[in-house]
């Protein structure tokens, strides 16, 4: 079946302004979009540039805005897209563009680092593992599976308006450690998220949840953070 892909193009070396370029090719309904992009790159237009690695939705490289929605190209099947009109592929919204579909995510990473994304437990460790019941583990089971693809933060209207906002991904990361029974830095972490640019910027819009390729209910965890902040003495 024929499908048309309308792809955002921009190469700072030669383009003053970004533009869209259309590619029409034969595709199978069961192909993933990433393979279509590879096909275009390898057989039609070698200059098309995008990030990709694992090809099965775990590395988080190929996040892009597809038909106006942030998702991973490697997890989007052609049959799930409307092929009756051109499929619009853009770099993730709101991040600066390096080239074509490649965005500069440094600001996103900076925010991830801001919430101190590492377990801190400086008590002398026991001779074996820290004990943690399955119920306690379940609290963070979904939250730790974040792949840092940036789809959520880029889909958040609060972030569009204000890129100082920590954003869903960083708040989820904070949640993952605050609610980890092994972590001892809870109070400091709560202080970090309890900021004008922290949890209070979340207006439960749920765009992040719609965008998350790992289907993490990020808003839920941010809400739990909010409750935890107001019920803790800081």
């Amino acid at each position, binding site marked *: 079946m024929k499908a048309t892909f309308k792809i955002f193009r921009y190469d700072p070396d030669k383009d003053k302004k970004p533009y869209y370029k259309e590619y029409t090719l034969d595709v199978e309904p069961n192909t993933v979009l990433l393979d279509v992009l590879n096909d275009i790159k390898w057989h039609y237009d070698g200059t098309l540039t995008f990030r990709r690695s694992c090809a099965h939705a775990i590395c988080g490289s190929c996040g892009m805005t597809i038909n106006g929605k942030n998702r991973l190209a490697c997890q989007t099947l052609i049959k799930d897209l409307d092929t009756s009109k051109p499929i619009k592929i853009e770099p993730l919204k709101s991040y600066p563009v390096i080239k074509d579909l490649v965005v500069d995510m440094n600001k996103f990473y900076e925010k991830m680092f801001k919430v101190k994304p590492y377990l801190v437990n400086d008590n002398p460790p026991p001779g074996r593992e820290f004990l943690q019941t399955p119920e306690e583990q379940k609290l963070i089971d979904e939250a730790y599976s974040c792949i840092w693809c940036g789809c959520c933060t880029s889909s958040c209207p609060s972030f569009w308006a*204000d890129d100082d906002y920590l954003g869903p991904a960083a708040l989820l990361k904070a949640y993952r450690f605050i609610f980890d029974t092994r972590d001892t830095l809870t109070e400091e972490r709560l202080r970090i998220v309890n900021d004008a640019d922290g949890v209070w910027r979340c207006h439960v819009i749920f765009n992040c949840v719609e965008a998350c390729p790992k289907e993490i209910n990020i808003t839920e965890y941010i809400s739990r953070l909010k409750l935890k902040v107001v019920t803790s003495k800081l």
Partner: protein
Amino acid sequence: MSFKSSGNSGAFAWFYQRITGIFLFVILLLHFTIMHFTGTGEITYENIVGRLSDPYWKMLDLSFVVFALYHGLNGIWMAIQDYVRSEGWRAVIYTILVLVGVFLFFLAAVTLIPFGLK
């Protein structure tokens, strides 16, 4: 006071926005029902003044005004924080919001309190 952090982080604003919201949910729907549906609250001077002479109604209406002003202006402040990034503009807008709030509370207070106390 830094306007970026609105005095505190926003935790207070967030929490009380919800608390006042719950209160307003009840009182506003009640208010509107009485005023427009039941027919008991025809809006004439006597009718309103009569009700306002009841101290309970007076208390209720006063707290209604306080909650509504807080909830409304706080809501605007939250939206402003999303879209206005400059510290200076934030300071200006914050001041205006506070002044508007104080002025309207004053207006409401001088209207509501004197009835029935003469």
